[in-house]
């Protein structure tokens, strides 16, 4: 019996192959986009975990000095008091335009790291003497090895795949040379085994702070915001995909009503039917899910390298560009496909189970009454209000996303009501009978299309919002680069001595030589880079201050005040007038806050003499050079020749800007890719909705045709209707997108990156998007319209037939 029923039910799909394909595409798109995002997130997180394991991060308690590096003397004092600690010196190093992290550990005392063990067990292990004494050895991931080997002046490189990319592991004695931080220790890890009777830390090294392993800021926390961002996009895509599934399943059920009624009349119980149909859906969901996983895997593979670049660039988080297939990802993807399909079909299933044996007419439109629209409008309004309340009352990224989520969902729910309102206004103003009919007909059709239109609204709003955010960011960033990179040339000498020579050599030849000197301090919010500046008009004219007190530059240059970057200001809520503790004993009032994009850490600026007081011995290797722009190229070459500097040590402003922008653009490749995909899916949702409504269209069109409209006219009107609805939706999406952009710029960005950006409007982009939307709606309606155009009159006449 089941076989017969299944055969009957499946025969439908054989006759409606397009519908089957649509359904599978819907499930596959929903699953695919979601799974792609999940795969990217999982891969990134796995990379952090791998890196943590490889570097034994977060395994041990650590000792840190908030005022700066720890001296070797301090380390020996601790050791001689019995404290079993191991020294680590880390810092960034530039290699051929890339920043790599150098981690120098005391190879003698540090617990064996997987990479070291791997090297020791290799075919040609290095002599311990080679590892520990000059020039030493560097250990790096295989992809980094050739880059390092091409560099002059670096120790020999050993390859180990037990290291994250962009990291050099070496002995601390090698690292202090490499990083030019002789005698400095960044942190001490506390080894697990300690002898009896160790004195209290406060008695022997009160300036050191014990950081528990569990309290250490780990990369995954830092990047949570980014992943949440991607997840939100994934969910949005998933929701949009489900609209398609909902539409197709609804249509399939409507078309199979007669068959189901017959089956019931033949003695099949409703219970059995519901079960069989549910299983049928589950099987389809799994097929679509598998397609979606393939799609997702491919998509993730394409997007991951950019995500990896973003995460490395923004957070210094180590992420491989390689994707690996994980079983839990497959299971989760299939579960989402299954759950999503059943959720999207729930409505249809319930209607099926409630269908009376002898019901009336075969096909009915989803006749959503005005009442339904109004109540969904109320719920929507409530959601918007709730989202706003959450956004303004609670802090944090999750609250930010909750606000955006509430506003978006709410707006989607309000959409049918607003559209209906707009249509009735148009209807009341319209003159001709056809126009009047069109508006009335659109209103009547709204309930059937509203889900697809909601999908379109969400996709458009996301597009406008994210697009505005990215473009605003880019515009701000470009402006900021212009302000920040004012020197025509930037030079980095190999050491302090050469630095002095460079400065002296340059002075008579150029307008100004501005030293760039900094030290890394430790603030309660994380690392803090302190910069010293000399008095020069360049800073007064160009430095990108967001807010400042009167006479800001005079105060700072007199050593009486400090400038801090926006990240630090927002993280520790310090603003002009407040005091900031740079190191114990050095507390300065804040005179101004400057914007500082593309940098996750806190920064502060003081006068040069103040810098030397707070942290003596900062390097004097880097300089900004003011020179007539047309002489910059010539001077750069002269500098390289004079001091034998490698190419990358003398950089021109233009090159630096171009490089910064390239990094920036790469950061948002993923975002815009997901954006476009979501819009495409929404277009597809409109198509499926129109196809669904198609069978219900004839009884409405036939009388109009009979009264004297040609099929071509009717087909054109079909196209017009779709385009008009899309246009109305797009019009409503614009303010929603603005709100979203505002939320992203003013709330989410502040939480995720630590900076607030001004919002710029891009009407040209909107116009482009608007046209794209109309095009999508036109394409989506083209198929139904073409069908109508080619419809034999006999099919229309059937509507009037007496014997039905």
């Amino acid at each position, binding site marked *: 019996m089941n076989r017969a029923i299944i055969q009957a039910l499946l025969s439908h799909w054989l006759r409606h192959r397009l519908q089957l394909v649509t359904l599978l595409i819907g499930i596959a798109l929903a699953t695919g986009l979601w799974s792609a995002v999940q795969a990217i997130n999982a891969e990134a997180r796995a990379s952090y975990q791998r890196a943590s394991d490889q570097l034994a991060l977060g395994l041990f308690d650590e000792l840190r000095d908030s005022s700066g590096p720890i001296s*070797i003397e301090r380390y020996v004092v601790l*050791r001689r008091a019995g404290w*079993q600690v191991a020294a680590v010196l880390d810092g960034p190093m530039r290699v051929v335009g890339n920043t790599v992290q150098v981690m120098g550990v*005391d190879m*003698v005392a540090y617990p064996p790291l997987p990479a070291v063990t791997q090297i020791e*067990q290799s075919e040609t*292990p290095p002599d311990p003497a080679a590892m520990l004494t000059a020039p030493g050895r560097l250990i790096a991931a295989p992809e980094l090895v050739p880059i390092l080997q091409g560099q002059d002046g670096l120790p020999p490189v050993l390859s180990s795949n037990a290291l994250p990319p962009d990291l050099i592991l070496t002995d601390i004695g090698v690292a202090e040379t490499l990083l030019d931080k002789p005698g400095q220790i960044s942190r001490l890890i506390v080894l697990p085994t300690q*002898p*009896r009777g160790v004195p209290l830390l406060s008695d022997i090294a009160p300036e050191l702070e014990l950081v528990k392993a569990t309290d250490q800021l780990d990369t995954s926390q830092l990047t949570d915001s980014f992943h949440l961002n991607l997840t939100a996009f994934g969910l949005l895509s998933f929701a949009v995909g489900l609209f398609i599934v909902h539409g197709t399943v609804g249509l399939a059920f409507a078309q199979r009503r007669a068959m189901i009624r017959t089956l019931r009349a033949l003695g099949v119980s409703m219970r059995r039917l519901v079960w069989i149909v549910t299983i049928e859906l589950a099987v389809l969901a799994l097929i679509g899910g598998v397609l979606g996983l393939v799609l997702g895997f491919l998509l993730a593979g394409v997007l991951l390298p950019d995500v990896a670049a973003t995460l490395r660039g923004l957070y210094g988080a180590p992420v491989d560009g390689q994707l690996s297939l994980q079983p839990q990802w497959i299971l989760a993807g299939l579960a989402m496909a299954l759950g999503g399909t059943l959720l999207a079909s729930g409505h249809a299933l319930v209607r099926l189970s409630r269908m009376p044996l002898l019901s009336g007419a075969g096909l009915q439109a989803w006749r959503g009454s005005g009442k339904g629209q109004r109540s969904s409008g109320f719920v929507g309004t409530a959601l918007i209000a709730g989202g706003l309340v959450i956004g303004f009352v609670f802090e944090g990224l999750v609250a930010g996303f909750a606000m955006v989520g509430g506003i978006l969902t709410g707006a989607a729910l309000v959409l049918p009501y607003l559209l209906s309102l707009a249509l009735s206004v148009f209807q009341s103003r319209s003159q001709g009978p056809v126009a009047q009919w069109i508006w009335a007909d659109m209103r009547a059709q709204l309930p059937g299309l509203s889900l697809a239109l909601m999908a379109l609204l969400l996709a458009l709003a996301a597009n406008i919002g994210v697009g505005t955010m990215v473009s605003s960011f880019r515009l701000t960033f470009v402006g900021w680069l212009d302000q920040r990179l004012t020197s025509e040339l930037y030079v980095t000498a190999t050491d302090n001595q050469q630095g002095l020579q460079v400065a002296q050599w340059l002075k008579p030849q150029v307008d100004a030589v501005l030293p760039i000197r900094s030290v890394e301090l430790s603030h309660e919010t994380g690392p803090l880079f302190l910069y010293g500046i000399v008095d020069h008009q360049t800073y007064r004219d160009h430095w990108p201050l967001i807010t400042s007190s009167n006479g800001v530059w005079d105060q700072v240059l007199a050593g009486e005040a400090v400038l801090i970057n926006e990240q630090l200001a927002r993280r520790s809520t310090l603003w002009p007038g407040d005091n900031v503790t740079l190191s114990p004993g050095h507390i300065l009032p804040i005179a101004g806050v400057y914007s500082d994009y593309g940098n996750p850490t806190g920064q502060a600026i003081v006068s040069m003499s103040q810098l030397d007081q707070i942290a003596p011995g900062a390097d004097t290797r880097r300089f900004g050079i003011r020179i007539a722009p047309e002489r910059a190229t010539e001077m750069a070459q002269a500098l390289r020749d004079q001091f034998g500097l490698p190419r990358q040590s003398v950089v021109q402003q233009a090159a630096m800007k171009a490089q910064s922008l390239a990094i920036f653009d790469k950061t948002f490749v993923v975002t815009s890719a997901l954006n476009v995909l979501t819009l495409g899916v929404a277009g597809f949702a409109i198509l499926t909705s129109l196809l669904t409504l198609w069978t219900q269209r004839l009884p409405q069109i036939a009388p109009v045709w009979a009264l004297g409209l040609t099929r071509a006219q009717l087909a054109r009107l079909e196209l017009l209707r779709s385009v008009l609805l899309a246009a109305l939706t797009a019009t409503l999406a614009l303010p929603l997108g603005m709100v979203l952009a505002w939320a992203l710029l003013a709330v989410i960005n502040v939480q995720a990156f630590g900076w607030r950006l001004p919002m710029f409007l891009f009407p040209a982009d909107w116009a482009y998007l608007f046209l794209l939307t109309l095009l999508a709606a036109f394409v989506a309606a083209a198929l139904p319209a073409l069908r109508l155009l080619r419809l034999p009159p006999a099919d229309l006449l059937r509507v009037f037939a007496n014997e039905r």
Partner: protein
Amino acid sequence: MNVKACLCVLLILLPPALRAQGYADLGGPAEGYAIPQSGYQFEFPRDHGPHPEFRIEWWYLTANLTGEDRRDYGIQWTLFRSALKPTETEGWQSPQLWLGHAAVTTPETHYFAERLSRGGIGQAGVSAEPFEAWIDEWSMRGPDPSALTLTASGPEFAYNLSLNAQGPIVFHGDAGYSVKSADGQASYYYSQPFYTVEGVLQLPDGDVKVTGQGWLDREWSSQPLAEDQSGWDWFSLSFDDGDKLMAFRLRGGRGDFTAATWITPDGTASPLPDGSATFIPLDTERVAGRDVPVHWRVTLPDRDLDVEVSAITPNAWMATRFEYWEGPVKVTGSHTGRGYLEMTGY
């Protein structure tokens, strides 16, 4: 004492596959390193300090102690120096590595700890005057080696002892030039075997006041092992009549190489050539997965010595980076007394 140290330190950073090569290196020429020469004139306090131009060196102290509870205890305090290059530099890039071993042996249990450091930064080292040998919080210090304070600690134990020499420094071999193989490999080797010791052991069950006798070995060299030598058994014994004996056997493929020094209570040292002493294992104990001979018969016909030497605590295993057995022993037979036994290569 001991050839062992050289292996210990040098092999710390080497993987197991390379240990064979490590042995071979020790047997090979000591490139750039100084070589012990016969007829060397020791000069103190200079020679109490380190000799970075030699590859290996150690300050090795053991003591047999009796607690106020009348039980036998033993302690070990060792600082090894191993040079990756025959130079010393300031900072992390110093090629001098230092390794500390400390242990307390009770009749039932053997507690030990290990420390590793490099030179150049002050975490470990030795100064000749005033004398101090240290690594981390462990130290052996005094105005000179005749009066020392000794401290060490591990997770389960700590000790603080004072040592006073009751006799002179003793030179082994030919006035401190100690030959280690038939091929002529040799080291500089002197001892201070006359310490009286008193102090406190801190153990998991509480503090124990102890008194007893201590023995310090000083040795440095650059290539002390012959190619075929695979391990050694080393004895430092103090007899109840006041005489003392240092004797060792290097086990090699071409046969054993032995050496010994007989020390009278006034400090007169008589070196005894290869073959003078015989060492016969009588009984083994299963320790750390190996059969270790913890019961010996040692004879020295020249001195009418025929004794059985047995471990007080058979499980005195040093499970450090380089593993070996080191613990207090009891002597019975023609002479009675106590001492320390060290065995490697099992």
